[in-house]
């Protein structure tokens, strides 16, 4: 099913009615799951989350390095990794999974399954049904006839399946799909036990050794959090990476219970975006981005405060918030002060 879904490689967007006359087998779009960027002409790869792709300016350029700063307990960053790997599986790419803590085989078993919409399945199987469904929708527009010529906007989450998929967090990926993908593994405790005397140089079978030197750096900053050199290494790695995204989850902080943030699970900071082939890059205008995780969907949105719908406008709700923040900040201190809200 996945092979059918991503075969063909037509770079059409699916959401516009613009049809390219150029034959689909152009050099750039030959790899499944990628598309050329408008801005700088490099091939872009999806990071597994379409909303993260939008924030990063269309996607990850092939050949760049994405660095994700973990949130406090690493829950959401693990989720991002899994989406990235699942995207690779669905597009039929080869995977290289390197891990210092968990066995890569275990990681792969826990990947989420991709979501396919019924409409999309029909389009893949037969073109006639797609045309038919279009005609049906055209007929049904009697009142809003003006909008008939506009392309259909897909409301359901399984949009443009060529680039970027949505994943169902509750279902695991099927074992057959896993079997069909080629993947390689690098598990740090394994390597260390096999080659205990490895030094930095003498790169004989380069591949795993190179990764080992990278792993050593990650190992240092992952496990030994108390090292004073830790921050320096983080700075260096940040400067060397192309794209840097930081996650800050609300778990365990006072923001978890703050009613202003009740819709979201955390914030996303985009620290760095590469400028490839150009002096400028696609920096999005909004810097307040938050993510939310529902059962099936992980989305990144612009952070906005919920509307203030209380009867007495603002005053009392502000009082409640003031109380709650006071409680959180001062422990069980004097509560009586907060009740009186002077309003002149």
């Amino acid at each position: 099913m996945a092979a059918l879904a991503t075969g063909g490689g037509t770079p059409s967007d699916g959401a516009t009615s613009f049809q390219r006359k150029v034959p689909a087998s152009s050099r750039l779009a030959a790899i499944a799951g990628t598309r050329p960027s408008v801005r700088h002409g490099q091939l872009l790869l999806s990071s597994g989350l379409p909303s993260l792709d939008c924030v990063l300016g269309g996607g990850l350029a092939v050949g760049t390095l994405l660095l994700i700063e973990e949130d406090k307990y690493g829950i959401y960053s693990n989720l991002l990794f899994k989406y990235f790997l699942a995207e690779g599986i669905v597009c039929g790419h080869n995977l290289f999974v390197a891990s210092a803590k968990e066995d890569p085989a275990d990681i792969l078993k826990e990947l989420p399954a991709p979501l396919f919409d019924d409409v999309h399945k029909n389009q893949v199987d037969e073109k006639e049904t797609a045309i038919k469904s279009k005609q049906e929708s055209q007929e049904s527009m009697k009142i809003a006839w003006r909008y008939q010529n506009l392309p259909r906007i897909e409301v359901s989450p399984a949009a443009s399946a060529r680039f970027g998929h949505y994943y169902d967090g509750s279902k695991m990926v099927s074992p057959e799909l896993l079997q069909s993908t080629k993947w390689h593994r690098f598990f740090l405790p394994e390597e260390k036990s096999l080659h205990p005397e490895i030094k930095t140089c003498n790169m004989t079978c380069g591949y795993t050794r190179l990764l080992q030197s990278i792993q050593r750096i990650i190992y240092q900053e992952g496990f030994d959090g108390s090292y004073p050199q830790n921050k320096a290494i983080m700075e260096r790695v940040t400067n060397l990476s192309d794209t840097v995204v930081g996650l800050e989850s609300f778990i365990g902080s006072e923001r978890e219970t703050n009613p202003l943030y009740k819709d979201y699970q955390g914030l996303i900071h985009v620290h760095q975006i590469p400028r490839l082939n150009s002096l400028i890059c696609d920096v999005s205008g909004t810097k307040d981005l938050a993510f939310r995780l529902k059962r099936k969907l992980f989305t990144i949105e612009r952070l906005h405060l919920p509307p203030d719908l209380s009867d007495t406008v603002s005053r009392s709700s502000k009082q409640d918030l003031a109380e709650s923040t006071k409680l959180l900040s001062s422990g069980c201190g004097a509560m009586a002060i907060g009740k009186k809200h002077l309003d002149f």
Partner: protein
Amino acid sequence: MFVELNELLNASPERPEQGKLTLLRDTKTDGSFLVHHFLSFYLKAGCKVCFVALLQSFSHYNIIAQKLGVSLTAAKERGQLVFLEGLKSCFDVLFGEEQHVGQTNPLRFVSEDGSNLKTMYEFVRTSLMASGSDSWKCPVLLVDDLSVLLSLGVRPVDVLDFIHYCRVAVCSQLKGNIVVLVHSNDDSEDEENELVVNSLCHQSNLILWAEGLATGFCKDVHGQLKIIQKGSSELKAERNLLRIYQYKIQDKNVTFFARGMSAAVL
């Protein structure tokens, strides 16, 4: 090259200065637009350029240089530009076969003891040495960027030694210029990097410091550029000249304006 920056620096491609060390510094933002400026400036001025590019690939620089009016492939072919592509050379050193690597790869230090930049210095010197048939003006060494060398395992002392040797060879003997890019942070914990940056600040004649705005991200003003020109004579103890401008980066140009005079505000 950016015309406005030339006016600010009082430089023109017809009369490039000689014997100067220019330090490009960036903090909280990306200062690589300055590297592109100097690359195209010196190529237009007719100087022989040795570009040690450790950060990006050749095509990246080429595409941007074409937007600025210079073709790097043409410059390479006529011998005006010697381009060391760090990413490719590093790959050759690590994974290449023994015969191909040889003794002359300038990045040999990555697989060896990790700190000897002598081969890189030799590479720079041989490429900038004037050969008989050349008609280029003063030679220029351009490095992008020096902080990467520290990440590759070179000690800061060796980096400073390398710059010193290059200054002697390029600035004094060959009467050329050196332009170097480094990253820095205000409250950085990376002491080795800060050591290199501070030392270079004292040695250089001109410092261009690109900083992100202290107030945060802005769409119309991308950052602020501090131009520090050292006093011309140390004996007279002239003061350094410090000027601050803000800039906005566009697709083919960078506009500079006085602080607060951004086009969006006026």
